[in-house]
């Protein structure tokens, strides 16, 4: 028996089924005309309404932070970058499966949660939660917040 038969066949590159995603407009990060107070209120409300939410970061899909509401021990720039990385994986999965736009992704670790929600096509809301968080409640609460944030970002 040929030794090669015992191995799984090598995957060959496939032509992408869907066209590559369109080029995005310029980054939202650092845009001075965004309604920062209104965005900040939405993010603070999320933290106050759901026990266990440690903080949240609003970032662009490019991984750059727009604004944040996290305590000092968390680095908002890191979180924004990791949210974009999570989004990247989610988008690839969705492209391959043909399931439409990325909506949400949750990472659960031993000590807590990291959840990323799509905020329109251009931004991401990432939420850090303790292990004791009521994650079902977060999933009920955060999407409307993300929707309102998307509307705020669109007004610019």
């Amino acid at each position, binding site marked *: 028996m040929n030794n090669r038969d015992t191995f799984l066949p090598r995957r060959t590159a496939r032509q992408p089924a869907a066209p590559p995603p369109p080029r995005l407009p310029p980054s939202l990060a650092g845009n001075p005309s965004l309604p920062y107070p209104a965005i900040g209120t939405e993010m603070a409300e999320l933290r106050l309404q759901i*026990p266990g939410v440690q903080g949240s970061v609003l970032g662009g899909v490019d991984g750059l932070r727009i604004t944040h509401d996290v305590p000092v021990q968390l680095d908002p720039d890191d979180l924004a970058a990791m949210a974009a990385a999570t989004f990247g994986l989610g988008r690839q999965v969705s492209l391959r499966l043909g399931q439409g736009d990325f909506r949400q992704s949750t990472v659960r670790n031993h000590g807590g949660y990291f959840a990323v929600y799509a905020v329109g096509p251009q931004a991401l809301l990432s939420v850090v939660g303790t292990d004791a968080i*009521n*994650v*079902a*409640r977060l999933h*009920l609460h955060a999407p409307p917040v993300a929707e309102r944030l998307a509307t705020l970002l669109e007004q610019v």
Partner: protein
Amino acid sequence: MANLDSALKDAMTIDGAIGVALVDYTSGMTLGVAGGTPEIDLTVAAAGNTDVVRAKMRTIEMLKLNDDIEDMLITLGGQYHIIRPLTGSNGKGLFLYLMLSKSRSNLALARHQLRAIEEQLEL
């Protein structure tokens, strides 16, 4: 012994049952639901009542009562809500949530039936 689907179906045969859910109170997520109405989203009820269960358990712990919740009754104007944490070894961290219409149900019988369903439930 009954599996989850038949246990939920049995719970819906209780007189006056509006909806029932099996909920994981570590996350607030539902493992299964039955019944409900277009106006009542049982997943919302599950997430909200998770906080109720957690608060009661924390209180019992703080009072050092060294006891467990057998069931909880919440009486509304038109409904009874019964919460019953699972006691079996594989039911740890779960509770049954039953909504009853106050006018169409017999509370004592409903509690008794829910206990039987919970004892029979195997996950």
